[in-house]
């Protein structure tokens, strides 16, 4: 069984985001970049399925400039077998990425697609669902448990108010939530080995996919800053403020 895992290079989740002075975008110059945490969970899940003998090959795909190879190599250090980079300097939309993955799948014919539920930069939460729609295959988003047997996937999803379990025919798309697993650390020998794993680079032209450009980014602003309030000296004073000034109790 072949699994495709998509990964995105994003600002590290511990870095404070700064908006550019001209409000055109956020400033990513000289910022630490990492694999999107939800994508890392997706890689880990695929690797666990491979270790369990369910998955035989893991193909990691990323869309972006040459720098995304760093995150692809990281995914390979965790256990992905080979990589396909779609090289572009533009920022593709979720629909673009879904179309590219669907296009790549024409050749790959994967049985399972594991994606992070969202990237922590654009916060879209779209690509997995869009890929499932384009391939006309089932989806299970926000997965916290995945079991695969007899050509079917049983996936427990985190939804508002609890958990829902679905059974899907394969091929299918799964998007990962935080509780699915805790990714391992990449050991140094694995990092060295990953450098020798195959990584193919394709262009948009080669794949015959043009980017959609239907969403224009007009401005990026900092959110309204919260003002530091006051320090209170006692529990009584706190309760008085909450009851009488803020009126929230």
């Amino acid at each position, binding site marked *: 069984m072949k699994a495709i895992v998509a990964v995105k290079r994003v600002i590290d989740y511990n870095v*404070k985001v700064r908006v550019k002075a001209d409000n055109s975008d956020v400033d990513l110059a000289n910022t630490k970049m990492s694999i999107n945490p939800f994508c890392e969970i997706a890689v880990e899940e695929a690797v666990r399925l491979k270790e369990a003998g369910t998955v035989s090959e893991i193909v990691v795909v990323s869309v972006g400039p040459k720098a995304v190879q760093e995150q692809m190599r990281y995914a390979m250090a965790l256990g992905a077998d080979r990589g396909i980079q779609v090289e572009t300097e533009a920022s593709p939309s979720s629909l673009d990425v879904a179309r590219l993955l669907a296009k790549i799948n024409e050749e790959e014919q994967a049985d399972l697609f594991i994606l992070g539920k969202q990237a922590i930069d654009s916060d879209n939460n779209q690509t997995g669902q869009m890929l499932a729609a384009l391939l006309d295959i089932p989806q299970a988003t926000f997965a916290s448990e995945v079991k695969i047997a007899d050509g079917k996937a049983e996936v427990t999803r985190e939804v*508002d108010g609890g958990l829902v379990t679905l059974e899907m025919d394969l091929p299918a798309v799964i998007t990962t939530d935080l509780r699915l697993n805790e990714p391992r650390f990449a050991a140094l020998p694995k990092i060295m080995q990953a450098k020798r794993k195959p990584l193919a680079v394709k262009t948009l032209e080669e794949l015959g996919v043009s980017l959609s450009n239907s969403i224009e980014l007009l401005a*990026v*602003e900092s959110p309204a800053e919260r003002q530091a309030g006051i320090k209170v000296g006692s529990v009584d004073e706190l309760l008085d403020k*909450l009851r009488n000034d803020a009126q929230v109790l």
Partner: protein
Amino acid sequence: MKTLIIAEHENGAIKSATLSAVTAAQALGAPVDLLVTGSDISSAAKAAAQVAGVVNVLTVEDAALAHPLADLIAPVAKQLAGDYTHILVGASTFGKDLAPRLAALCGVNQISDIIAVVDADTFKRPIYAGNAIATVKSSDATKVITVRGTAFAAAAAEGGSAAVSAASATVGSAKVRFVRADVTESDRPELDSADIVVSGGRGVGSKEDFAKVFELADKLGAAVGASRAAVDSGFVPNDMQVGQTGKMVAPKLYIAVGISGAIQHIAGMKESGIIVAINKDEEAPIFNIADYGLVGDLHEILPELVSKI
């Protein structure tokens, strides 16, 4: 221009995420229709018709729609999409699951989690976990949008008088089956929709000491959250984590106990109405965003709060 909202309903009632989407739709200035799908939906359709500001309620009733599966609802909505310039869904897990699948079927991009309507094509939405606000303009003929519930007041659930009619849409067969639902058995409100949230951090000290946080929450009828540090320390399970990689909350009152205020935690709660911080370190960054800060030992403060509320 015309807007369709895909309703989320439970036990015959329209959920608040949908009511917030109705308010967002009013800002577009176009007539608003509600689509209700399900297997036994007469009471949900009746409730939908009562929602203030809705013109038509369209129903698609089919045994296969007993559980809200995006795989089945997206193609149904796609069949109706041609009549609409905007299709809105609340940004609940229902809406987040459904809207991208529908958008891809329509061949359009999707706009997630809007917090403001600038005009019919232009919207504001948080990116980077709310650390930046993007203004985006869509040129798609059909705009598929999810609406952040905390940014729009819920439309009145009563007072409307929409016409109810069955829509002509066929329901396909899904390659996915509902197995079971495990609804969290808790008397506490849900973290994402609670009016008051009490969260504990590493400063709480231990799993046992976290009982004090639960005690305060129960006294207030509040939901309980935690920082990533508290989760990583094993004090509480990780479905309680508030923050960039956990749950985003915006209650009327957020009480942070023993939480220092890491960026990734603040990203998940800074839209709260009033923030209270209780911490023994007066230099803790949480105090920079708190409306009311109380410096001291939480092990003394929490029991005192419980006894005086």
